[in-house]
């Protein structure tokens, strides 16, 4: 415990005396982490956009006009019990017509052409937790006996179940690509940053290798020599990470609302929770690089 406070004291003194080197390391860590943070922010935004697009995917099951209410309720119950399904809504024929009329306010003649008749079937609207499961769920509904009994077009049940078959497939291909690219970019950045910060720390320690050798010759154990250096590395990364977190928070606070108004059709937002996650990640990542980098860089000079 005493040596811990000794290490801390030594680290602070050395921090002050090697101000320029330390400042350089802090700025490197700050900028690297800031870039990573901004990209994390960006990837969260993209993820939101992708999700909001995907969430528009749902399954509509058209029900025959003569279907018995108890069969409809049964199918409703069965689908609702699927693990993948978040909720199911029943839309009556009347409701369907009403919705249609509302959608067609710009072309009222289409509604008038119906001449009071209602060609629209009643339907079940199925929403899913994970839109990627749409094909799976659709297939299960198709296999369901009750569905076959009450579907609108009993000649071809698959015609009574709509989820934008081909479009959905392509959409998911695109969104998955976007996800992979996001992960790859962040991973690449993390790697680059690791090399970058590691080099800075290596240089800072290279400049003090004589010092380390002298400590060894005076009889200091490796742990005793490492202590202050590690503490200094940790201090550098903590300060650097703190600046980076403030930077990311400022960008979210001031730059993102401007972006959101400029691209108002896209749901751009990053929750406080996500910001907290980014902060914690940056802090941990910074600390790991700071400590690990110092440890690695010192290793060869401790062999005297």
């Amino acid at each position, binding site marked *: 415990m005493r040596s811990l406070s000794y290490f801390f004291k030594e680290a602070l003194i050395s921090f002050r005396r090697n101000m320029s080197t330390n400042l350089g390391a802090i700025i490197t860590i700050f900028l690297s982490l800031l870039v990573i943070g901004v990209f994390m922010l960006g990837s969260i935004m993209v993820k939101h956009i992708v999700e909001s697009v995907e969430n528009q995917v749902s399954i509509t099951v058209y029900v025959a006009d003569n279907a018995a209410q108890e069969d409809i309720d049964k199918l409703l119950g069965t689908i609702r019990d699927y693990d993948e399904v978040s909720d199911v809504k029943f839309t009556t024929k009347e409701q369907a017509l009403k919705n249609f009329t509302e959608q067609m306010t710009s072309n009222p003649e289409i509604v008038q052409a119906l001449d009071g008749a209602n060609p629209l079937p009643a339907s079940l609207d199925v929403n899913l937790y994970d839109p990627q499961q749409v094909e799976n769920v659709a297939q299960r509904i198709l296999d369901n006996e009750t569905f076959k009994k009450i579907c609108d077009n009993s000649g071809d049940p698959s015609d009574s179940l709509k989820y934008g078959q081909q479009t959905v497939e392509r959409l998911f291909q695109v969104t998955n690509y976007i996800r992979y690219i996001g992960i790859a970019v962040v991973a690449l950045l993390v790697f680059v940053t690791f090399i970058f910060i590691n080099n800075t720390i290596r240089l800072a320690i290279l400049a003090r290798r004589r010092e380390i050798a*002298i*400590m*060894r*010759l*005076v*009889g*200091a*154990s*490796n742990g005793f020599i490492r202590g202050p250096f590690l503490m200094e590395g940790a201090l550098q990364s903590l300060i650097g990470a703190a600046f980076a977190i403030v930077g990311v928070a400022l960008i979210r606070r001031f730059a993102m609302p401007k972006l959101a108004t400029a691209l108002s059709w896209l749901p751009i937002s990053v929750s406080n929770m996500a910001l907290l996650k980014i902060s914690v990640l940056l802090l941990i990542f910074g600390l790991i690089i700071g400590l690990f980098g110092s440890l690695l860089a010192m290793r060869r000079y401790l062999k*005297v």
Partner: protein
Amino acid sequence: MAKHTKRTRGGQIPKASREGTGKLSSLPSIEEMEVQQSGTPVISFRHLTKVYPAQPEKPALEDISLDIYAGEFVFLVGHSGSGKTTFIRLLNREIVASSGTLEVSGENLMNIRGWRIPYLRRNIGCVFQDFKLLPNKTVFENVAFALEVIGKSQAVVETQTPEVLRLVGLESKMDKMPDQLSGGEQQRVSIARAVVNRPPLLICDEPTGNLDPQTSLGIMRLLERINRTGTTIVVATHDREMVDSMRRRVIALENGHVVRDQDRGVYGLDA
């Protein structure tokens, strides 16, 4: 021309044979000094050879066997490249010998475990030719470091450090950085650091290597005082005047061999 004579001291015949040149043994003979000797030597070389990988043909030290006992003051003399520094660096395990055995303070340095090395070095004060002071620490902190390393309390550090700095005459420069001091002052700081934890063995590599005669004399006086407290001292030097005036044991190295080992010796005539 060299007649081999055994080096004797206090009537006790050393385990290893030591050689001296006949010519030098005829120099004014002085009554044998009473050297406090315990049964086991502080430093013990046995057929020790050190070959650097860069010069496989020419060993830096070859087949060295000798003992240094507690309380002795030993000069190690020889030309540049004769193996003095290798000798010194073997003692604090900066380098490892190629063959033979070497024991220092009861530790066998040929197979000492890595984690034991710091503990060995805490028993050996080291004064280097290039001082090896920590550039980012003040004079006080440099000396205090040797105490902090062995886990001495803050109170001990704060009493012992000024004390030893007073001993070397630097109490007024405690808060200076090493580069604000003269060479002689830096050397005295390095001596202070080497002796502050009262090690039983002090080894010095050219402690007066680049100092003027007046300063050298001061440093030698200091080493003598430290020796009188019972510390064993090994000094590698080519300062002829100093060796001749002190009249202590002299081990002469030449091309990696001990060519002379003499109590109350002088630097030598061949130099």
